[in-house]
């Protein structure tokens, strides 16, 4: 059963074509890593998947929704697709608990007591139960990112998208966030993650996709792909990372 189907997607910003016919299929419970050089179109592809960017042509189906409907259809899609960004983007005027409860309460109409239960549950999942009343600026970057993940999980998404969620973090903080993501993957969440953490991609991702110049240059099960790259571009990319 596939949870994400991307078919021949093209996307341009003005004259610049950033995605040049991208196709991929992600099965339920699979973890896909998107890797590639800066500017190869990884973020753009991810952002197209939840409608933050509009595609020019092609088709995207995700969590049972097809992109391209009206605003209401898009919101309905977004309740099933979570996204976490590099820059956390917590709401600074709300406490951790309020950050997490906001969308379930006002989008899904979950009663306050139940929303609080959800907040406690997802905070426990990311190991931050004691921070429910803290404000974002009282947390470290790693803690903020874990709250951002918890905030997405509170909507009970079927698919989670991650865009370089550890790139702004120190190595120790990176580790705590990766651990949370690894646990999610083990629990069967369908995940697509853009990452520069090759070790993590290799260990956790079922498939790895190497993007180059707006196309999928090379793709396959992570183990073989990293161990034995077929294209010189990927070989170079992997080698550069080891250094």
């Amino acid at each position, binding site marked *: 059963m596939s949870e994400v189907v991307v078919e021949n997607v093209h996307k341009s910003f003005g004259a610049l074509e950033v995605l040049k016919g991208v196709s991929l299929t992600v099965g339920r419970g699979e973890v896909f890593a998107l890797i590639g050089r800066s500017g190869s179109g990884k973020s753009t592809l991810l952002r197209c998947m939840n409608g933050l960017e509009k595609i020019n042509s092609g088709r995207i189906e995700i969590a049972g929704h097809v992109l391209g409907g009206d605003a209401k259809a898009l919101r309905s899609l977004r309740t099933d697709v979570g996204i976490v960004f590099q820059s956390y*983007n917590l*709401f600074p005027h709300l406490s951790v608990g309020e950050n997490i409860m906001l969308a379930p309460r006002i989008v899904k109409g979950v009663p306050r007591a139940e929303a609080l239960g959800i907040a406690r549950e997802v905070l426990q999942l990311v190991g931050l139960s004691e921070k429910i009343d803290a404000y974002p600026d009282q947390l470290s970057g790693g803690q903020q990112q874990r709250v951002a993940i918890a905030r997405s999980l509170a909507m009970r998404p079927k698919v989670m998208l991650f865009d370089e969620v550890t790139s702004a973090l120190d190595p120790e903080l990176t580790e705590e966030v990766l651990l949370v993501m690894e646990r999610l993957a083990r629990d069967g969440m369908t995940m697509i993650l853009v990452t520069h953490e090759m070790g993590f991609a290799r260990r956790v991702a079922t498939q790895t996709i190497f993007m180059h110049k707006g196309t999928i240059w090379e793709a396959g099960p992570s183990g073989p792909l990293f161990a034995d790259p077929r294209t010189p571009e990927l070989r170079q990319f992997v080698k550069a990372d080891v250094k």
Partner: protein
Amino acid sequence: MTLRTFGFSEFGFLLQALQWTVLLTVIALIFGGALGFVVALARTSRSNALRLAAATYIQLIQGIPVLMILFLSYYGLSLAGFELPPLFAAGASMAIYASGYLAEIWRGCIQAVPKQQWEASESLALSPLQQYRYVILPQAIRISLPPTVGFAVQVVKNTSVTSIIGFVELARAGTLINNATFQPFRVFVAVAILYFVVCYPLSQLSRVLEKRLHVGSSR
């Protein structure tokens, strides 16, 4: 005719007029604020037509002296057959004037909220209205407090132009008393002090808010 001297009863008269100055300021901020808020929303909306209309309004109001707005609403409307009481004309003019500036100040505050806040809330399936209500405006309002209070000081001082249509606020009251006492120095020092007594605390408040919001974002 005997000249009066500037004594307690004259000072009392100034105090009364000061109340009108404050009332006029409050009217300008409430009605101008309501109108300015709508214009600020239009100015930051996705609709090109709304943005253009709002930008034109702001340019127009900011490009006309308050005095002209006052003349237009007082004489213009009375020519058209509407006889406006001075308080009404003064209040309406000050509100229109304030709306043009508040709209621009608040536009800046709305746009000062990082665009990632829009993306994050959009990605959580919030509707545009919910994004404004729960994520953007609460942050924009915090940012807007110092400049808004600062602008209130300008409004207090600018209410003095309404004296020209015979509205007896503080500046007009000063002129009247001076005409009766011919002690311009005493009278206008008193008037100036009264303006200062209202404006200084506001300026200080604006400064305190500014500082407090600058030291990190913790509350």
